[in-house]
């Protein structure tokens, strides 16, 4: 009797499952699908959700105006958990779902392996945040970015350290990821022996205890700590450094510039130098974006506006190309000039933005403020 019960229960479950799967298929509408991928869960989820919200806002605006090519736009959100393996499987999923284009990924370590998958499908990909130079050096015609490159970013940081702060000895710590180590190495390269690197070491991303590394670093008596990595580790690093009595200034890149960094580090974040693009609050074209985003999603993150612009460019290119065929859209993207919330977007043959100004920000009273702009020589 018991056996009979089990069988009937199992078959009942199967019945329900098959019905729900079937109804899932039946509801299919003719839409243009845009994928957005990034770390939607886990310690970097803030960045992933910022990107999702930026893209979501752009898609909603287009849908209000009647969509693209006469069809509604559907946003497919995928979570890559800032894991390269997960990024590849997410990329395959989006390709199979028939997405017309991708906004993402966030981390360079996920964007690079995922870009190979999208390249095979000739599907256009615009990353709002991945700054590692390697991404656009692969010879792919479908990869674009609306942010800058780490060689540009490292150069601005190095110029600032050597010419403005006029320091002689620095320490460099990175998180061993494509982005973190890449940025740290570009910084060291750009210092070009003008400043001595007295300490260079990697830590494990997601680790919570950096005291051992910091203690070894302290002994070398550097005058500045440069960190290549993302905000959870950056926040803990500077917090623990201050607890160990290390008082030297802290400098890092665009992966750290988020309010969460201040939340984690507390007062230890004061006076940190961070390289990033200019403040959208000072860009005239970004006014409407900031107003609408704040109304719909709250305070924008550093990359919300990039995701918004990337989505708008992607949809404009589809509109101009008059279809969603990958190679045509890629060609259109390469040749178009788009005025977005951040200003003019125009790509070179690699898919890098033609003009990308990085500036140095500073943390003051728990807020980020623009601090220093490189002259022509720093470009």
């Amino acid at each position, binding site marked *: 009797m018991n056996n009979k019960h089990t069988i009937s229960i199992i078959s009942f479950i199967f019945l329900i499952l098959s019905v729900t799967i079937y109804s899932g298929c039946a509801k299919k509408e003719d839409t243009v699908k845009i994928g957005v991928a990034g770390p939607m869960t*886990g*310690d970097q989820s803030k960045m992933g959700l910022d990107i999702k919200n930026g893209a979501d806002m752009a898609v909603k605006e287009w849908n209000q105006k009647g969509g693209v090519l006469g069809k509604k736009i559907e946003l497919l959100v995928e979570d890559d958990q800032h894991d390269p393996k997960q990024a590849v499987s997410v990329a395959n999923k989006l390709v199979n779902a028939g997405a017309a284009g991708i906004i993402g990924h966030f981390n360079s370590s996920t964007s690079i392996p995922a870009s190979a998958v999208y390249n095979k499908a000739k599907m256009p990909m615009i990353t709002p945040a991945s700054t590692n130079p390697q991404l656009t050096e692969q010879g792919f015609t479908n990869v674009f970015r609306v942010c800058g490159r780490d060689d540009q970013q490292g150069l601005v940081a190095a110029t600032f350290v050597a010419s403005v702060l006029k320091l002689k000895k620095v320490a460099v710590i990175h998180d*061993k990821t494509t982005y973190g180590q890449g940025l740290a190495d570009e910084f060291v390269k750009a210092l070009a022996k003008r400043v001595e690197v007295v300490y260079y*070491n990697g*830590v494990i991303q997601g680790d919570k205890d950096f005291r*051992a590394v910091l203690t070894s670093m302290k002994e070398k008596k550097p005058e500045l700590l440069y960190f290549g990595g993302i905000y*959870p580790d950056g*926040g803990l690093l500077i917090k623990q450094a201050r607890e160990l*009595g290390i008082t030297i200034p802290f400098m890092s890149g665009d992966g750290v510039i988020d309010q969460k960094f201040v939340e984690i580090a507390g007062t230890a974040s004061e006076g940190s130098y961070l390289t990033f693009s200019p403040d959208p609050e000072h860009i005239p074209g970004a006014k409407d974006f900031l107003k609408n985003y704040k109304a719909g999603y709250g305070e924008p993150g550093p990359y919300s506006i990039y995701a918004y612009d990337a989505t708008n460019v992607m949809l404009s290119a589809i509109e101009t190309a008059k279809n969603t065929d990958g190679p045509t859209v890629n060609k259109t993207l390469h040749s178009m000039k788009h005025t977005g919330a951040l200003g003019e977007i125009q790509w070179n043959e690699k898919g890098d933005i033609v003009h990308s100004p990085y500036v140095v920000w500073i943390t003051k009273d728990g807020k980020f403020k623009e601090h220093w702009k490189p002259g022509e020589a720093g470009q």
Partner: protein
Amino acid sequence: MFLQQLINGLTLGAVYALIALGYTMVYGILELINFAHGEIYMLGAYVSIISLSFLTVTGFTSKSLILSLLIVAIISAVYSAAYGLTMERVAYRPLRHAPRLSPLISAIGVSIFLQNYVMLTQGSADKIFPHILSNGGFSMGNATISYLQTFIIITSVFLMITLHAFIKKTRFGKAMRATAQDKKMASLVGIDIDNVIITTFIIGSVLAAVAGIMVAMYYGLINFYMGYVAGIKAFTAAVLGGIGNIQGAVLGGFLLGIMESLGAAYVSSEYKDAFAFIILILILTFKPTGLLGESVPEKV
């Protein structure tokens, strides 16, 4: 600098030792490796942050910091103890006479369940401990030992001594030792085995909760998967000292913390986590009974 690394390692080791005690006590009595023990530690950290935020919102923290930290410790210890007790009731007691592999699998199941339960209810983003503690510390030469590090080491050592006295000096401690030696004989002389097992789980859970609170204060950042690595490291510490042996767990915890800290400083910080596991492999290969463990002939 060596002194500073030693202090960092001692702090880390104190936390490992506290968690390792829970592993080793349960193993001593049930011969079960309670893989869900790390999750209890994670729960302790979460409850501390949630209750402290609550006290901060109501304005209590600003009135008396020490009293509110004490309240937080009690809440989270009680909460974790309740979880430890429920875990034993639901996942281990029904399997007490099953083959040894079954409770082990059940433990892994509980661990996965608790992680996902916390992720779903508390969200997957990191939780941040409120910035209410002073950053200061004592200076010794060019090393700094922060008030928090001092607090962690003293609290852990105090708890370890208390536990040692409890097991060696009290009647109940004697019952625990008897149960660990032979469950059947112990029950024949009138010891309530279930009671002993439950108490073991409660003590282990309270220690893990205290470790969780201290880590939340020390790092200032927690997440739902923190129990996994900490659990495995504490397990390594317990094996290093000789699993089932209380002094062994303490020794193993401190040794592991110091080795990890010195390894990261002098060998390579990139392989910091690997040191714990290299030690685990070496111990299992060359001295499976651990440093203080003795090889007991198979019980008949």
